[in-house]
């Protein structure tokens, strides 16, 4: 059976956009099920400089002060292998990587 590829829109915070040298949101091809892990895998494959900056390199656990939002929901503590809403998979809604409101 052919594996489908979705084009997911991802919004990155300023510091990660600068490192990746992109403006605005990025469009990432995600093969198969659209999950948080699949999106972040695609993000790091496309922009290797971002490896380890949203999640731990060894454990893949989310960095404590990074949050993941989509469709008005905070998905930060959800199962990274759970399917994301159809609107994210179709590109109707972006997947957002957000730096927590903290610090000075």
């Amino acid at each position, binding site marked *: 059976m052919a594996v489908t590829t979705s084009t997911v829109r991802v919004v990155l*915070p*300023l*510091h*990660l956009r600068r*490192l990746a040298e992109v403006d605005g949101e990025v469009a990432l091809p995600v093969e198969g099920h659209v999950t948080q892990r699949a999106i972040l895998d695609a993000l790091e494959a496309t922009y290797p*400089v971002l*490896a*380890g*900056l*949203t999640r731990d*390199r*060894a454990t893949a656990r989310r*960095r404590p*002060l*990074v949050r993941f939002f989509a469709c008005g929901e905070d998905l930060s503590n959800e199962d990274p292998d759970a399917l994301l809403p159809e609107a994210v998979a179709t590109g109707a809604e972006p997947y957002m990587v957000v*730096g*927590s409101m*903290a*610090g000075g």
Partner: protein
Amino acid sequence: MSGVRILVGTRKGAFVLTSDGARKDWRVSGPHFPGWEIYHVKGSSVDPNRIYASQTSGWFGQVIQRSDDGGETWAPVGGDFSYASPTGDHLWYDGTPKPWVFTRVWHLEPSLTDPDTVLAGVEDAAMFRSTDGGNTWSELTGLRDHHTAPQWAPGAGGLGAHTIIQDPANPGRIYTAISAAGVFRSDDDGTSWRPMNQGLVSEGIPEADAEVGHCVHRIALHPSRPETLFMQKHWDVMRSDDGGQNWREVSGNLPSDFGFPIDVHAHEPDTVFVIPITSDSEHFPPEGKLRVYRSRSGGDEWEPMTKGLPQENCYVNIFRDAMCVDQMDPCGIYFGTTGGQIYGSNDGGESWNAIVQNLPSVYSVEVQTLP
């Protein structure tokens, strides 16, 4: 020599300050990497255009930046500092065991012979080496695997390997200092390490003269006399004349022997600079007077250098990596403060000027003397 280039790491970015040999007029560029904490920026002595920077963030973690054109442009290189062997535990603040966790790179020390080789001292305390210009990093596991490591406990800023010195006369000899474990020396290019803390006395630990556990803030040596080391400890200014095997106190007449940075004059191996801080409870200069103290006798006898420095209402701190000397004649000395000032002296410390003010809190200051 054509001039100097000062590399400044701050709480909110990096800055590069350049001047000609007179060191009176300065050009300031930056912030580079705005918004990121820049723990350390240091250039290669082999290729001054090669500069490494440790860019870190509580949000996004660690990035190493590299410039190949003297700080004009930068590119991120490798930021993977995965410990090479299973991590054990060190002591946490409450005395309980805590597993090693990489947090950030505190200090980058380029090789004395190869611009592509650089050492990194990290928190939680360990040392890494890159031999490909910072693209990939390998841990020198002998430090973290030292048999005393389970006894190491973090200082207030974390369990950081913050100082790295390569002995120019003895290839393969490396010193590191860890807060709060102490000084360690390797004589086999980082493979194995020995504590070098004999003579240190620290009242803040249960056994004052323990083999490890001392909060060493900074060590320095002069290349022409590498067996002699100077140390600013949490309290006490110390000196060793046998490569760190034995230390004796040389605090002498300092108004306070607490402080962070220490450095040695470029051309006078017995001339040493420190910046006294009131105490570990009051991280600001005694009496609100910012004074660099100079000893021309290798310690014990100190004189204040105050001309051009604020002598009232000054309550900044100077971090451990935030003072350095250039190789010009007369020797230049530079330091940065938590208040965002970079002060410089182009006459061996006799007089000072604020090169720039109102930067973010300064974490590190290094200088390159340009050919």
